[in-house]
């Protein structure tokens, strides 16, 4: 077992303290016993998990402290092929196989347990309850690793429980809501899917696709990355759940950057995601898409600045989908924000827009009356396109369920994990995580529909009409939103974004990439650069003037890093570590949108022109 450097903030989410207990409509279930390994199963991993949990369940106890009431073992097998090229030259290429382990042990009971509490003085074990473990899928080494991790998790739980109880005693009103909801145990052992990288030469494809960028000598840098990921996850709980399931994902993600002549930094990105490597477009198709993105970037270089503006803005469907992911995601979760002894985590979450504005508002109108919003992980495809957010069972072992969040503008239900919230107690199968992080209630395939959708021509007419009636000579149309996690050529560029602009996220700052002035007189378009949408929050969605009938599916990776999952920044992830998700949305016409033009200090241009490409 090798200790992990990251996975630090995994013990995160805390529970509501001062809310009334919501009425659950499901009968309380008693915990079932641990499930036996299915007869005839030869997977030594399942046997090792079962046997070590059985031993711990029956015998693990420290004198004078409570025995655990809940054990959970999770394993994740990752096979990852990743290849990066730039301007036709290979930058890196690697294939890795790893297995990660995470053990959760809880003391207390479902009402009050050792979870959902953040303190600084946690248990300092010598190995911890997570780690990188052997990849032989053998019995003996896994039992040894699980044994140590279980022991560490138990001691951590005991310490955490003591700290939590002393903190709760300091509160005038103790929590009334349960820490952990009951869920039906599930036994579902799917066949393992072994990686198939196909016979394609990924290094050559990355070279070939990225070579097209040599035709754009004004590009400063670029990275074109292929990620092929196969993941098999195991989950076993002392409640009787046993799950083995395999997933896979293939992606091309590319970033390119340059500077405008006045020094403004500019970038663009390209991404495509498919369930299997074989489904990825060939090098010629990727090259074509990269050329198109670069052409847009070159056009941006020589375009005028976006002016300060307030008025109607037309979001084309891809831009609308991205905006909805950023604006809606933080408010879809029914779990209350974490309870923490330290203010740091609260401040962190606040800063990145991690507060749910919809929590506690079930039954009230939150969107225009024509709008229905659904999240459906059971949906496999839409318009012939596979939906990458689909899954059978969520990351807490609960069956995936379609959830109607908003119906005719009224908030009906929120996304739930097994952490109860003010509006609901029980999970509706939306606990999601990447890399064995703590699961949060997150969207899967989010679909926004309207009963009064307009055809594209009518949509455009309405847009120009509202411009005209507001007395504008031109209005703004956003064709594409930025995704800084993908468009950053270097990791530091994204960190810089999070550091600088990330703080505005909670106030509704959103970053468009392709903004056009559309002239009322003749409808012609002019590209502009550098604006930021200001104050675009959930409330802005009540000002929807019109909704198109042209739904587009946007596939994106939710950022699972640290506390970013479940925040507006969560929409900015990458195939390396993100949670596959989709948003299906039509174009949207919003009124009273504020756009701030570029007022900052542009960067200096390079001292010297770029060296020759040949």
């Amino acid at each position, binding site marked *: 077992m090798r200790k992990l450097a990251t996975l630090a903030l995994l013990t995160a989410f805390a529970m509501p303290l001062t809310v009334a207990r919501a009425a659950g409509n499901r009968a309380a279930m008693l915990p079932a016993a641990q499930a036996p390994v299915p007869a005839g199963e030869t997977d030594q991993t399942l046997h090792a998990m079962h046997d070590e949990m059985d*031993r711990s369940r029956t015998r693990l106890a420290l004198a004078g402290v409570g025995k655990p009431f809940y054990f959970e073992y999770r394993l994740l097998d990752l096979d990852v092929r990743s290849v990066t090229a730039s*301007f036709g030259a290979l*930058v*890196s290429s*690697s294939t890795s196989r*790893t297995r990660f382990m995470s053990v959760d042990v809880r003391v207390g009971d479902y009402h009050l347990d050792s979870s959902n509490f953040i303190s600084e003085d946690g248990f300092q074990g010598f190995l911890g309850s997570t780690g990188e473990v052997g990849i032989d899928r053998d019995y*003996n080494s896994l039992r*040894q690793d699980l044994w140590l991790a279980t022991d560490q998790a138990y001691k951590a739980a005991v310490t955490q429980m003591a700290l939590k109880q002393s903190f709760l005693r300091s509160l005038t009103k103790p929590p009334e809501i349960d820490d952990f909801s009951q869920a039906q145990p599930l036994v579902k052992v799917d066949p393992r899917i072994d990686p198939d990288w196909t016979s394609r030469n990924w290094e050559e494809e990355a070279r070939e696709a990225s070579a097209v960028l040599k035709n754009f000598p004004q590009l*400063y840098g670029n990275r074109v990355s292929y990620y092929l990921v196969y993941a098999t996850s195991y989950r076993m709980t002392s409640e009787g759940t046993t799950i083995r399931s395999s997933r896979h994902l293939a992606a091309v993600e590319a970033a390119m950057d340059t500077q405008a002549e006045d020094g403004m930094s500019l970038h663009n990105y390209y991404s495509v995601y498919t369930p299997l490597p074989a489904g990825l477009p060939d090098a010629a198709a990727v090259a074509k898409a990269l050329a198109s993105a670069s052409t847009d970037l070159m056009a941006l270089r020589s375009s005028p600045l976006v002016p300060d503006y307030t008025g109607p803005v037309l979001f084309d469907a891809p831009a609308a989908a991205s905006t909805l992911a950023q604006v809606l995601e933080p408010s879809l979760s029914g779990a209350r924000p974490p309870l923490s002894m330290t203010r740091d985590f609260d401040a962190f979450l606040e800063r990145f827009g991690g507060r749910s504005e919809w929590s506690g508002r079930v039954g009230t109108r939150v969107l225009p009356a024509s709008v229905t919003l659904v999240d459906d992980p059971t949906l496999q495809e839409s318009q012939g396109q596979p939906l990458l957010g689909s899954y059978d069972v969520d990351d807490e072992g609960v069956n995936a369920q379609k959830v109607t969040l908003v119906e005719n503008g009224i908030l009906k239900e929120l996304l739930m994990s097994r952490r109860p919230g003010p509006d609901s107690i029980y999970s509706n199968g939306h606990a999601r995580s990447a890399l064995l992080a703590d699961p949060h209630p997150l969207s899967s395939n989010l679909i926004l529909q309207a009963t009064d959708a307009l055809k594209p021509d009518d949509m455009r007419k309405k847009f120009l009409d509202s411009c005209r009636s507001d007395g504008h000579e031109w209005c703004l149309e956003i064709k594409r939103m930025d995704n800084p996690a993908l468009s950053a050529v270097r990791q530091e560029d994204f960190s810089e974004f999070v550091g600088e602009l990330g703080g505005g996220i909670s106030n509704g700052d959103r970053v468009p990439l392709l903004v056009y002035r559309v002239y009322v007189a003749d409808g012609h378009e002019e590209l502009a650069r550098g604006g930021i949408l200001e104050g675009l929050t959930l409330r802005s969605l009540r000002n929807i003037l019109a909704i198109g009938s042209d739904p587009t599916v946007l596939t994106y990776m939710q950022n699972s890093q640290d506390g970013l999952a479940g925040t507006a920044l969560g929409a900015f992830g990458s195939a390396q570590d993100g949670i596959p998700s989709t948003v299906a949305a039509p174009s949207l016409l919003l009124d009273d949108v504020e756009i701030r033009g570029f007022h900052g200090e542009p960067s200096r241009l390079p001292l010297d022109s770029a*060296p020759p490409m040949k």
Partner: protein
Amino acid sequence: MIKLNLTYRTLLTGTALLAGAWACVAANRPAPPDTPAPAVLTAMQDELSRSMEATSAADPPAYFISYTVSDRQLAEVSGSNGALLSSTADRARWLEVQSRVGGYQLDDTHKLGDRPPSWTSPGTNVPLDDDIAILRREIWRETDRQYRAAAQALIKVKTSEQVQVQTAEGGAPDFSHEPPHTSVGPHVEISVDRKPWEERVRRYTAEFSKSPSVLNSIATFTALATNQYQVNTEGTKLAFGQIHYRLELFVQSKAPDGMDIERYANFDWLDPKDTPDEKTIFDSIHQLVKETEALDKAPLANPYAGPALLTGRAAAVFFHEVFGHRAEGFRQKDISEGQTFTSKVGERILPDFISIKDDPTEASFGGQMLLGSYPFDDEGVPSVSVPLVDHGVLKTFLMGRSPLVDVPHSNGHGRRQLGFVPIARQGNLIVSSTQTVPFSEMRQKLIALVKQQGMPYGLLIDDISGGFTFTGRGQPQAFQVTPLVVYRVFADGRPDQLVRGVDIVGTPLVSLTKIVAASDKQEIFNGYCGAESGSVPVSAVAPAILISEMEFAKKETSTDRPPVLPPPAHDSEAKVVQQQ
């Protein structure tokens, strides 16, 4: 400090930029005369003149630019508790640019009081393919990025009032003038079949698991070939390769009172034919297990001040920590440093029978590989054997290109982990003695000293792991190293008793002067040393030494108890029968 080089993998690849500093022993052969220049070198050279032209005309002008590309080919096979943990082969090229603005006397790197150094880019990964145009483009961007950072830093330096205040080192320049060096050696490569190693690390760690005392074990084999390319505007042009193979064994245990017990062994070699044989490795495994089991049961030591005998390996680490770090040149000019030895050049700091040099030019010692060897340092200066202490008298310091008034030039010790700015670091620190006695006699001397001081026992330190040395001014001028294997040697002739839970404490100057004897056999410690410029491979060589008075304190210990249940493989009550 010397620390174990256990590379903890990070899950997020983006944070792994600086993971792994590997450099090794030189394959310092002259190149055949007609070898064509490697593409990387050509790209760097092409871009260098263009960049210098542009940045030297800028305001503020750059006066020095250097490019370093490290092409690293790494195979790594790791096992744990009897199973394979990972097996990977990887190649990457990392570019580092230095762009200095101002002048040799005062530039952007000038240290301002106790402020941390200004930000510089750690560099970037660049294509593996030898495409000169694309390599140049990466170099161009990184140069611009680095120049901007340097230009901003210089403004801070110039506006700072603190520049007016003379440092203790009386206005030494920021950068030394050095002659250019040209050497283009052959490209090195490794070809590793990982399969046999996958089997071996399984076997090694399975052997550890036979002991119920061993809670966790890791065995890691690494093979690394580094080709380093460097050019600078002074005319230096280098290409040299180094190959290094390493096997590390690591076990963890817990004493009944919760104290963490860790044992570690490593093997280093340059040539596949020198791979340690199975018997050597299994002997080492059994030795580690034996020590682990004994340490688990060993009593806790009491605080102690009295005579101590350090074996060669233990003494080597002791010298590295206590003397070596304080002999690093840049510490002598930094007013926030303690500057233990700054004004002591020419003075006696050790007994007159002790001499110390740092010699990175030696690839091996007594047939064993030295890990801190290199042909050129990371500032492009050839490595030099530096006599630091001659018959007890301090002669000079280890120097990178940050000069002192009295030591104006580098002696080839500017070193760094990839992504860090080079500073003066140790290479192969070699301690020798003109008066030696056999080890058995040193034991007798220890017992004699113990009796003389009227004490019941003395301490024998057999192995020391990393420690940390405070060299900063605000911190106590003390050092702390962790002895891993400590025996009580009794005055009354009882058998030696293993104890645990002590740290060596004290002040360096005092303990160095209390060395009373040295043995006739030097031993080697190969390890990785972490300091301001990251983790670099080092060696330390020393004879066993006897110190008339040394201070030991109780070690800070962890409080979590040993696991509640016995290991699954050693649980007689376990109802389940093991599979397979």
